[in-house]
């Protein structure tokens, strides 16, 4: 169809008359006709470019692409004798007005720029930290304000966020937790049976999951699921100027947007951790039953003896701290989004990567600080 249509239009043609003294153009000089034959046309124009007389009376249509081709062949000025239909005047008028305008040039990259680039990276890091401190400080100030003005608590937003990051995350947490529990139990059971130490499966699963794996696993899931969503939401609100609209109405972005997310995730994470760890242990229990023939009764009775309750407390505290960090990091990056899609995607990625890294770093700190607490065999 398209070729038919193109075929139906008169093709651009160049006829040179009088031994190169006069050039007669005809047909359609438009982008869709010219672009496929651009090289050919340009060569013909080049060959004819010295001619003093040009006749464009036979041109049926001429758009700015065609005009530009001619203009360049003419050396950016009108040839001495030009026959130009009145309707085509404006195109060449615009080209003449354009002169030889060029894009603003960017200075070339020098060695010194590399140093400057490095310096800017470092300063950027410092600015990140500064911004983060401002975020935390502002949140604390807003909390103080809210403690004195009870009616300003964003309770609805908190509950909505709690539902989004907590309740809605339960199925995926359960699925992943269950599978991890099964796998861990299966692998440990293989080893333990070799030593005849079957009953230690309760210790391994209990300690490992409740103290360590549960909180970290749930944090990674939540960072990917809710952290990215928070960053993206705040980012889009930046892009669409919704945050500016809020500010104009005198609504603090920290109180209305950041605080509910932070509070909701800090409260939801311990509960999610509890849920995730429970399901993981259940998975381990099922696997132990299948592999080692260990009854549920025995497992559940042995669990409190093998795992001091301090471990549960550590697990839940870790959950709360990780939740707080994930939400803070997510909001930090969300509020840094610049109004374009590239920045949105970069910040969302940075948010998830940073929060997972921070969670694992802080987990290591926890491991060192709590090394004397809740471990039965030392």
């Amino acid at each position, binding site marked *: *169809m398209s070729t038919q249509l193109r075929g*139906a239009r008169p093709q651009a043609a160049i006829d040179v008359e009088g031994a190169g003294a006069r050039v007669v153009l005809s047909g359609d000089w438009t*982008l869709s006709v010219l672009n496929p034959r651009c090289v050919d046309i340009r060569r013909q124009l080049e060959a004819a470019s010295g001619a003093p007389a040009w006749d464009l009376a036979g041109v049926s249509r001429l758009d700015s692409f065609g005009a530009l081709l001619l203009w360049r062949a003419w050396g950016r000025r009108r040839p001495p004798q030009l026959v130009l239909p009145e309707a*085509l005047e*404006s*195109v060449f008028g615009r080209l003449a007005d354009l002169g030889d305008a060029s*894009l*603003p040039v960017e200075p070339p990259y020098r060695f010194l720029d590399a140093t400057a680039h490095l310096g800017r990276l470092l300063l950027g890091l410092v600015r990140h930290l500064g911004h983060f401190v401002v975020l935390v400080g502002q949140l604390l100030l807003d909390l103080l304000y809210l403690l004195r003005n009870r009616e300003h608590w964003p309770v609805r937003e908190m509950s909505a966020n709690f539902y989004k990051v907590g309740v809605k995350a339960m199925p995926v947490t359960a699925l992943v937790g269950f599978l991890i529990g099964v796998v861990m139990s299966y692998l440990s059971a293989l080893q333990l049976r070799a030593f005849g130490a079957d009953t230690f499966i309760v210790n391994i699963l209990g300690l490992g999951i409740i103290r360590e794996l549960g909180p970290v696993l749930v944090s990674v899931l939540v960072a990917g699921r809710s952290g990215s969503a928070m960053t993206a939401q705040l980012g889009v609100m930046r892009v669409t100027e919704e945050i500016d609209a809020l500010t104009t109405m005198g609504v603090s972005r920290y109180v209305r947007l950041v605080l509910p997310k932070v509070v909701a995730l800090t409260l939801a994470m311990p509960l999610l951790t509890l849920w995730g760890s429970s399901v993981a242990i259940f998975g381990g229990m099922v696997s132990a039953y299948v592999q080692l023939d260990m009854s549920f009764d025995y497992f559940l009775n042995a669990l409190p003896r093998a795992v001091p309750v301090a471990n549960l407390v550590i697990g839940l505290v870790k959950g709360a701290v990780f939740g707080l960090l994930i939400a803070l990091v997510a909001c930090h990056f969300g509020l840094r989004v610049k109004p374009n*899609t590239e920045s949105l995607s970069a910040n969302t990625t940075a948010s998830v990567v940073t929060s997972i890294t921070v969670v694992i770093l802080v987990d290591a700190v926890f491991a060192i600080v709590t090394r004397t607490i809740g471990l039965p065999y030392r």
Partner: protein
Amino acid sequence: MNAARNTLPVELKGLSTRFGSTWVHRNIDLAVPVGEVVALVGGSGTGKTTLLRQMVGLLRPAEGEVRLFGEPLFAGSRAEQLARRRRFGMLFQQGALFSALNVFANVAFPLREFGVSDEAMLRDLVLLKLAMVELGPEVALRMPAELSGGMIKRVALARALALEPELLLLDEPTAGLDPDRSAGFVRLIRALQKALGLTVVLVTHDLDTLAALATRVAVLSEGRILAFGPLDEIMTVQDPFIERFFHSERSQAALARGRSEI
């Protein structure tokens, strides 16, 4: 001339649109002839933007049919559809610039997609398009977020013009432009029309522009086309909406201003 030139660039046949349970359009018939500037007017929320979106296939009608250049928009192979799509350009109400690309790359985007690969040619073309909408080369490297509302409109128009379309669909092209720039827009469209026989469908509330540009006016009201014809004919139609839209004192003044520009 040949048959291809005489087919209607836009033809709506019995088109109805529904969002949920509300009907926005009911049985709309509209035929836009080649080389005409059709102004689509109507109250806010009467479905003008929706109608433009139907024309370019962003929205499928609940009933009826849209034909562009004599064929259904989605007819034919992928290549044919693409060729058809390259024959029209659209200016969105909010500009819809690619926020991750600078002004230059935004305007160059359709050209690069089309296969213009000569960088020097591309640069001149983009600068020319920007000059057409009265923007200088100094804005070319700015990002869309660094532009004013009116500038966004003009860059978006330059992008819509990039592929030299035969049909232009413009959603409120002069909203956000100062009167001087609006006059410049009118001059630009008129010049393009003279040189290329461009067909334009524009949504506008700006009576100056309407009176200066439109060869026909389609009035959209209560989900149907109330009247379609030259402005003078429309003005004689007896209808409360037309009465309010065209015959108030302010409208008369604006129309007179627009007419004097011709």
